[in-house]
């Protein structure tokens, strides 16, 4: 890699309501878990610095903010994603069946440049519960049939496999980011109100007419 510019990876988490999307992200970033289920309130996105192949990258993990509840995620949510995490509840077969439509929805809305090779990661969550209803084999088969999507069985509650899953997510997102168009590097877009805002502001002597 020629440049060592700061890398920001956007990761989005999709899946049916109450499969544990917010909990997974909260467990990974804050090492916390709450037993009480609430439709996501206050969950926005969390950032975490991770080291991937000796590189420090910032991973921004975006929650659905509950807009998936009635299939009302807007296209803006999907913009510029470097990796898409699909989550289902291993005790609720319907949430597994819906992975297909979440994957399709992502590919339609995000329209990635190379849909065949866009990085997905599948998480089968809530393996700490006893009433398991989706077998490992079934989940693995589905992932294999979709171009070998990496699959992890996690428990956000117990913190099982959460770190390793997100490490893979970061790695695959970084690979995707490096593949994306060079064009944007020449002409970066602006995020308002951030530190880059003031950096971009020239000295007052330059611009006060």
């Amino acid at each position, binding site marked *: 890699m020629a440049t060592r510019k700061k890398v920001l990876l956007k990761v989005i988490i999709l899946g049916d*309501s*109450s499969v544990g999307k*917010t909990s997974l992200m*909260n467990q990974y970033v*804050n090492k*916390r*878990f*709450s*037993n*009480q289920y*609430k*439709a996501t*309130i*206050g*969950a*926005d*996105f*969390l*950032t975490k610095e991770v080291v991937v192949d000796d590189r420090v990258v910032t991973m921004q993990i975006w929650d659905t*903010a*509950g*807009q998936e*509840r*009635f*299939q*009302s995620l*807007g*296209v*803006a*949510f999907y*913009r*510029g994603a470097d990796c898409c995490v699909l989550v289902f509840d291993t005790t609720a077969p319907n949430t597994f069946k819906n992975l297909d439509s979440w994957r399709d929805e992502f590919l339609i809305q995000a*329209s990635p440049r190379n849909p065949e090779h866009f990085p997905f990661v599948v998480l089968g969550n809530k393996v700490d519960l006893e009433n398991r209803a989706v077998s490992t084999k079934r989940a693995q088969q589905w992932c294999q049939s979709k171009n070998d999507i990496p699959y992890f069985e996690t428990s956000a509650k117990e913190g099982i496999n959460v770190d390793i899953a997100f490490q893979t997510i970061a790695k695959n997102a970084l690979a995707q980011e490096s593949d994306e168009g060079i*064009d*944007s590097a020449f*002409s970066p*877009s*602006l*995020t*308002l*109100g*951030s530190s880059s*805002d003031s950096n*971009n*502001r*020239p000295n007052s002597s*330059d*611009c006060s*007419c």
Partner: protein
Amino acid sequence: MDDLPKEFDLIVIGTGFQESVIAAATSRVGKTVLHIDQNEFYGGFWASFNLENFMTHLNRDTGDKKCKIRNVSQEWFEFTEEKSEINGWNKEKIISEGRRFNIDLIPKLNYCNGKLVELLISSNICRYTEFRAVDKVLTVLNGKIDVVPGSRADIFTKKNVSIIEKRLLMKFITQCVEYKREENNESFKEESFDFPDDGKFIDLMKQQKLTDNLIHYILYAMCMANTETTFKEGLEAIRTYLTSIGRYGNTPYLFPMFGCGEIPQCFCRLCAVFGGVYWLGQKINDIQLINDESGNELVKMNFGNEEISAKKLVCGLDSNFIDLNQNPFEYISRAVIITSSPLGGSTVNSDMDGGGVVLLYYPVEGKSDGITMIQLAHYTSCISKGLYLIHLSTTCQNGAKSDLQPFVETFLRHDHDAETEDDTKPTILFSTYFEIPSSIKGHDYVSQQNGPIYSCSGAFSELDYDESIRQSRLLYSKMYPNDEFLPKAPEPEEIIIGDDDDDREGNVNLGVLADLVPENKEDTDKVLEKEDMNKTQ
């Protein structure tokens, strides 16, 4: 599927700009919001679409709806065997790439120091989208397209502006900035213009002996004004221009990546983050006003299979549920044109590869507002590399085609001849014309509204969102006079999600959020005071 609550503080129908701002502001202060749209997509008249969905949307059957997009026409360049492609593009190739386009129904630019940017930053909604600085501003001087000098350096290297003109320009601009700023300071007063506020801006410039060249740059390129613009309006425009320039780029404008359809969605996300419930694509069967046990008016709404009541209801211009007599609307004439070379050709595009955003304001004689042209290239993620998306807008007078013809016939061509030397006129590969409902600037939409059903205005014929934000603030303060308008949202790290320490059943997250919600009205008053001061300046 979890159940939808049966009662909300507010239901909002429609996801256009103003509806989304109201929804976000209401949710932000801790009220419960149900935000719905009968469309399957966000934005209503403010949406962006890919090419296929754009055409489907324009041509869809809207039945007997009164307030809707009208007079749609579309045309492709006639590719033949001899002329099977232009710069490597033909109809099939454009359609195959069309999935990546983001075509705005109503394109807008944002002043770097304008009301929208200010609101996005002050509310912290800015983190939901990214922008691109507009690369250059063009103007038409003596029939030719020319680049408007942006920075101070640009003006001084510009050959067709003489040294005397440069001095005049600097003096005039300095006076505009200083004017009435130091009202109580006698020494400044002498420097000020002696000119009535409602006098015409152009007359002031003539009084100050500015040359025709300079008047043109100031009036059309900096202020996007016309000969009727008043001194007061002109002064405000030039100040916004000057405080915006150099903040993010070489021009005073920004354009949202992926198009303007992102903007309402940013506000919706904030609403959702604070607990707002979203449901798109559901038909609304019925809306009634009822009284609860204590005699308070409630709104009851049937939609899908749900029956839901709310203390207040807000309807968007395209929602079919607003009284169009009380909310009169007009139309904006629009054209969307795709070309495979940039406007003005190599003479104005020599410095770059034409990958950015370009603005041109073209005054039209006998019409109070001119034609606004926004040209987008691939860096905006709105069109493929090698293609150019040209948006034309003006208030509707004689129909879209006729209103926009002065621009199209002068700067674009319908034929293609590779042999000609003149590459300044791009060939139109695809064009569509339509007229889209908009609200009337200066009309009082808010003061007569007393609830519990309120209506939103649509887009205004303006470059930025200033009037829309003003109307949103007015409506919100009418609905919730004691609540602050979009105070800064906390950073994501500051929001703790469902902590185990807090065991209050059903109230966990709201409990955390309550700390973030302002409790009193003091802050609002401060903001309003500040605004008043700004106004009187």
